[in-house]
């Protein structure tokens, strides 16, 4: 059941503004090309890009931002490339996840990725063992931490406390 009292008619503009207004989200006429070609949807129908766009256009802000499904986009850009209305679906999914994260709804997998990048400036911690292995393979050593990246991600590191 959708109750019009729960809808936020400005949500679509909020999403569009998130990415500099190039999402073309209001052009969507629900043809379903996105869902038809989606490799995630082929495996599990709880991810359905057409439905997510519809929910955004209807203003179902809370249900979208608190959902698990927005984290399931594999960002393959198939829908983005095929959309006849040039709706930038993959960017819209990124915008939704960005807004959700700011409001404290963040998937644990991404919280961990943020922690690593904020701690090292890399997605993996490089240990002495790794550089020794690289040396044996004839590869140059790589830097372990990047102070300036740690500095740049300071704001991001705080993102993701559960509400």
């Amino acid at each position, binding site marked *: 059941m959708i109750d019009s009292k729960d809808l936020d008619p400005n949500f679509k503009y909020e999403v569009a503004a998130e990415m500099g207004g190039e999402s073309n989200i209001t052009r969507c006429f629900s043809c379903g090309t996105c869902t038809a070609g989606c490799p995630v949807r082929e495996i599990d129908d709880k991810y359905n890009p057409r439905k997510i766009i519809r929910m955004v256009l209807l203003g179902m802000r809370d249900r979208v931002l608190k959902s698990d499904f927005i984290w399931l986009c594999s960002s393959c850009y*198939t829908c983005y490339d095929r959309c006849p209305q040039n709706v930038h679906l993959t960017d819209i999914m990124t915008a939704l996840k960005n807004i959700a994260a700011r409001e404290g709804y963040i998937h644990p997998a991404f919280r961990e990725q*943020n922690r690593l990048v904020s701690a090292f400036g890399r997605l993996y911690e490089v240990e002495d063992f790794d550089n020794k292995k690289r040396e044996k393979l004839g590869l140059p050593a790589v830097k372990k931490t990047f102070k300036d990246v740690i500095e740049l991600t300071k704001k991001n590191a705080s993102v993701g406390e559960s509400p």
Partner: protein
Amino acid sequence: MKYALFLGCTIPVRAQHYEMAAREVAKKIGIEFVDIKNFSCCGFPVKSTDMETSLKIAARNLAIAAVEGYTICTLCNACTSVLTEANQILNKNKELRTKIDKDLKKFDLEFQPGLEIKHFSRILYEDVGVDKIREKIVRELTPLKFSVHYGCHYLRPTELYDCFDDAESPSSVENLVAVTGATVLDYKNKLDCCGGAILGVEEDIALAMAKQKLDHITAGQVDALVTICPFCTIMYEDNQKKIESKFNATYNLPVLYYPQVLGLALGLDPKQLGFRLNKVKAKELLEKMEVVQ
């Protein structure tokens, strides 16, 4: 031909064989890689939750590259995508660039327009060219059959990559494989995603996505799958055993990085190309070629 080699996070610690092969192939082809120690994570891992921070990290790398002035050569599709996108956004959006430059200035860096970012496979295809590569082939891989997985961010979104290949019917990497003398086999749903980006979000869905691809690829009796992205390889090779036990299937499908395949054809030793780091051993394939590992 000089390029700044961008390794990213995954390759230096989890796909050293890709890096070894790329470096060896580059030497043979006449490409010089400049190592820039200060290249960090590309920014992709934080894009989902904080686009602006992702742009800052990407811009930092681009600014560092601009000091040297060489085109960036990437090996990972995700790095290619995020760096290219950031480059385009910051070239177009002056307001955002000013904002990001403010942060970069603390480290004496500034975004510079005009830099190019290219995946190593695209460099081989566009800047070197299939004909030039053909001249260097000393060991024809005629007995071998391969299928290719491009990986989404190599081709899409089309507008990001100047339409250098047809995203709905690509042929560039197949041409690069075919020049070695090997046969390239097409397969069902070739362009479908490996699932790598959601492995940490919902493993069941991600593994099912990779499983479906492995089913389609192995229907063709190929000697190996050829990839150009470490994330895709993690799905098809590192997770192959897990997929086999979860779905009660047997694949035993070697997964090679393209430079490993090209390296063989260029006469390089499998040791130099990191074959012993491949988790699914390519022993039979090397025996067919009568090369000892």
